Each structure stands twice: as C-alpha cells, then as structure tokens.
C-alpha cells in the first residue's frame, strides 16, 4: 500500500476507534441504567418508601433510614476529620526545604489508607470492634469503618480546594488584623467551600453505595433504627438487600432487591449531579470575577 494511502487509512481507523471506545463504555452504561429501571418499574409502588420491612415482606423503610443514618454519621465523623486533616495538609504543614508542599509523610499515609480494599477494612472492623470490643453488629463499628474509608478522599478534596484559594485573600485578612483562626473561618474556608462540599457529596455517594465492609460490621436487621450505637444485633441498610434478596425464592423479596437497587442508583446520581452543579456554578463565578 502506498504511504499516503496507509496514512489516511490509519487516520480513519483512529477516528473510528475513539468513537468506538466511547460507545463501548456508554452503551453498557445505558444498558445498566435501563436494566435497573426495567427490573424495578413494573412492580414499583411508592409505598415501599414508608412501609416497614418484615423478613421478606413489606417495604424498605428500615433500610432506607439505615442508609440515611449511615450517610449522616459519615458526614459528621469523616467530614470533620477529613476537612481538618485537609486544612493541616494545605495550610499548616511546614513547606519542605526545597519549597515543595510539606506534610509528605502524612499525605502518604492517607494515600496508602485509600488504597486498602474496603473488604479488608471491614474485616479489621469485625475483628477489632464487633468482636474485640464486644460492640456486636451495630451502627458505630459500621460508621467508623466507613469513615476510615472516605477520610482520605475528603482530606484530598479539601486540600485541593484550599490550594486554589488565592494567597492574596489570606494576606488581605492578615493585613486587616484578623487572627489566623478567624480568617480561616471567615475568608479561606468560605472561598474553598464549593470544592469541599463537592468532596463531601462524593464521599457520601461512596459511603451510601458501599456493601463489603458493612457485611462484617453492621450485618443486617429489618427493623427501623432504634437509636442504639452499639450492641444492636444488626443494622439495616439498602445495599444488603441488593446483595442478598435477589436470590431468595419469594418474588416479593426479589422485587425489594430491585427496588433497593433503583433507590440507591437514584440517590447516588442525585449526589453526584449535585456535586457537579456546585462545581459548574462556582467555575462560572470565578471566571466572571477573573475578568
């Protein structure tokens, strides 16, 4: 084949390849969404949202409340720890002698922690908290394990957001006589807030969709959460139903499993879209300000 001809063939192949690659990802994604909806839609009744779960019958009230409680708890525990850790990494750690960002070892620890598989964290939670401290399957061990899982993520998001706050803001605050803590709250954190909130929303999406570590720390319970932190003999959440109920013999149990899947997907997508909207709005804002 002549050289010019070969070059144009490669170009066409390359262009077709990029489109094919996109199709190979997007078509299963659409198929997945359609599958989740089509499994749940035919029998969908809004009453599953507020009906109690009784064994394999009833609705999903208990697990829905459980997942929301887990997310709220993660927001409080992992949110405060992660944001504070991010503040330390971005603002307080001393720069290295060569001028790079400080806190290398602490950042490394967070990175390593985010690489530990969630099932391993769940196992450690089971051995140390559920059995070791006699907490039994309940809310607190589940919360702690989920928090350990997402703290590195929130810390990273916070650090990135804080690094994008212009130094002139901090200098301006200092020149006005604000103490470091005061300017942190009123100036720096305020302008980094969109990035931090985005990180928190994504962390919530991860926590709400997680299953593996919860199997060992919360196990399951079909009753609505009674307010106990430990020794609850199980704690219900949505992902467990997706994992187990689809293979049960009763049709209603299978339906509950599909419903739980649909609710989870809707919830996670809502959180991620929310995060994206915040990013888009603030980007527009900063671009406007820059000009």
């Amino acid at each position, binding site marked *: 084949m002549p050289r010019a001809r070969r070059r144009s063939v*490669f170009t066409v*192949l*390359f*262009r077709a*390849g*990029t489109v094919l690659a996109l199709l190979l*990802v*997007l078509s*299963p*994604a659409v198929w*997945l969404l359609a*599958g989740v909806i089509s*499994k749940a839609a035919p029998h969908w009744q809004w009453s599953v949202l507020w009906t109690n779960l009784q064994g394999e019958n009833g609705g999903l009230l208990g697990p829905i409340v459980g997942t929301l409680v887990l997310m709220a708890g993660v927001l409080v525990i992992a949110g*405060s*720890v992660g944001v*504070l*850790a991010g*503040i330390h990494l971005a603002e*307080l*750690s001393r720069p290295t002698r060569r001028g790079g960002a400080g*806190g290398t070892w*602490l950042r490394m620890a967070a*990175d*390593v922690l*985010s*690489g*530990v*598989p969630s*099932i*391993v964290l769940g*196992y*450690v939670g*089971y*051995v*140390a908290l559920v059995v070791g401290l006699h907490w039994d399957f309940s809310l607190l061990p589940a919360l702690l394990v989920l928090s*350990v899982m997402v703290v*590195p*993520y929130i810390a990273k998001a916070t650090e990135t957001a804080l690094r994008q706050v212009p130094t002139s803001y901090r200098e301006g605050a200092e020149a006005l*006589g604000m103490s470091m*803590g*005061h300017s*942190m*709250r009123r100036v720096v954190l305020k302008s980094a807030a969109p990035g931090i909130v985005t990180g928190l929303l994504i962390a919530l999406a*991860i926590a*709400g*969709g997680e*299953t*593996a570590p919860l199997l*060992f720390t919360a196990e399951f319970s079909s009753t609505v959460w009674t307010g106990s932190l430990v020794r609850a003999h199980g704690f219900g959440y949505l*992902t467990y139903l*997706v*994992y187990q109920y*689809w293979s049960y013999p009763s049709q209603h149990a299978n339906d509950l499993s599909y419903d739980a*899947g649909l609710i*989870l*997907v809707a919830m*996670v*997508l809502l959180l991620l*879209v929310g995060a*994206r909207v915040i990013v888009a709005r603030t980007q527009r804002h900063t671009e406007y300000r820059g000009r």
Partner: protein
Amino acid sequence: MATLEGGADRRPAPPGRRSQAQGQPRLARMAAVLRAGETGAWKWGARVAVLLPFAALVFVVAVLALKAYPAVKVNGGGFFTGSAWKIGSTYAATTRTDGVAHPVGSSYGAWPLVAGTLQTSAIAVVIALPISIGCAFALTERLPRWVSRPLGFAIELLAGVPSVVLGLWGVLTFGPALSKTLYPFLADHLPDVPVLSFFKGTVGHGEGLLTGSFVLTLMIVPIITATTADLFRQVPALPKEGGEALGMTDFEVASKITLRWVRSGIIGAAVLGLGRALGETMALVLTVGAIFQLAPNVYSPMSTIAAAIATQLDSSLTDGTGFAVASIAELALVLAVISVLVNLAARWIVHRTSRLGGPVGRGA
C-alpha cells in the same frame, strides 16, 4: 493593629469602674479571648485530625498482622501453592501444629484465589486501557466541548454506581445475555493457540471469570479515562500544532506527540485502575460464581481473594479454634499488601509525570 481591634480591652480595668464597664467591654473581651482561642482550636484540631489516617493505618496493619500470625506460622509457604481451602472437621478433637490449635484436616491453600485475583484484574486492565485511551482522546481532542462535557460526566457517573448494583445487573442481565451471544461466538471462532485456547470449552450461564472481568472493566474505565484525559490536557499545544504544521495526520499527532508525552503517566493510570480492580469485592462476589477453583476456561466460575473474604467469614465462625478466621486474616493481609503496593506505585508514576496527579480514592 492590636490597638485598633481589642488592645483597650486587654488593659486591666481600674477596680472602681468595674460596675460601669459591664456590658460592651466584657463582651468584647470575651470575643477577643474566643478569637485568640479560635486559632489554637483550628491548629490543634487539624493536628489531631491529620494524624488519624496514619493511626488508622497502623491500627489496620497491627490487627491484621496479630490476627494472621498463627495462620502464617502453620500454613507457611503452602498458603501460596496449595489449592484446597478446607476448614476441617469442626466436630472432632483439635490438633496442634507449632503450638497453634486447629481442627483435624484443615488445609488452607489460596493459590486459586491469588491466581483468580490476578486473572480478573489483568483481563480488566488489558481491556480497559485501550478503551480508556480512546475515550480520553475523544473527550479531549476530537469532540466539541458541548458534546464532550456531558459525555465525560456520564462516564464519571458510571464510576459512582454502587458496585453491588453493578454486580446484580451483571448476574441478572449482562452475564446471561453475553453467555447466549458473545461467549458462544468467541468459543467457536477463536483459534486453538496457547493463550486463546483459554477461551475454548463450555460457555456456561454467564457467571464466571470473563463476566466478572467485564464488570470490573466497566468500573475501572472511568478511573483510567479521567486520569488519562487530565494528562492529555497538560500536553502543551505548541508541539501538537507544530506536528500539524509539518503535515502530520491527527493519528500521527496523537500517537507520536500526545501519547509519547504522557507515556509513563498512562502506565500510572492503568496501575491505578489495577489497584482498584484488585480490591473490588461485591461486583465480583455476584458475577464470578464464587467457587474456589482455578478456572479451567474463561467462562467458568471461580473466586478472588476479596470475594473469598466476603463469602467465607460466616462459615469460618463455625471453627471453634479461631484458626479459620486467622487464615482469613492472612488472606486480607496478602490482599492489603498487594493493593497498597500497586496503589503506591501508581501514585508515584502519575505524580512523576504530572504535578496535578490523578484522581484518588475509590473511583467515584
């Protein structure tokens, strides 16, 4: 500066005028104290918080090592070469090896699990890498912004789908559909040469190695695509424009300039995906069949380390000596060490090429 804000309050008030000085100055004094305390509170809070991930890491390693120690001692090297995973007779008397009690006939060989983890992850990365590079090119270089932004966001959303939902779809819809269409086609038409003969044989019902690998692929493509697209955006425009000015086609610009510019970063992105694939649990528990065996062909059910930990804990609790739980700790330790090393390597490679670094965390 200080006199402007609260200096007057810091001077002790003359004793006789204290009754008059109630109200405003006292409030101001409290505010000043609070404000001074605020800096300290932020600093100490941040100092404690930043140590917690480190403490958690040490705790996790310590618990795993302590718990796994008896199993490591008894199982020895056979843990990595043996292929029988048996709790042993939990009703008979227990025996002792090296001072560790365990049931008669217990045997822990994790080779099929280790091999299964490597198989599923390797297949997933091999499929995901070219697809991700293609997607990244399409998103950053080829498509107009109004198309590429929503498409990029759709791929991001795919990363956020809970893995258990992906697994359920894999076992109910995706796997069965493939076992009726793609798998028979592959089994019939691929040549019987080394590597590819692994694709021959009975096709099964869609629960097995290949289905699991495909689902894993869907989970890691968004991660590799996002990282690669970030890298592509950092390639300066001048060399690319120079290439075009010299008459290079867009394929030549892509392969000879853009790809070469970020070569090692892409390896890092692939390793990042690999790290995620190694530790994935729920999607695989549901789609690979979770049977402890070395898969005879790509369609047969098998298991991975992570899936085994999830499915074995219940039955391990029946072992009164606790040796089964210790062996699971050894599995968890092996998995943690592998995926931490892979993750660190990926971060190091990506960081070396890019100041921004790749997206971290568990994908979403």
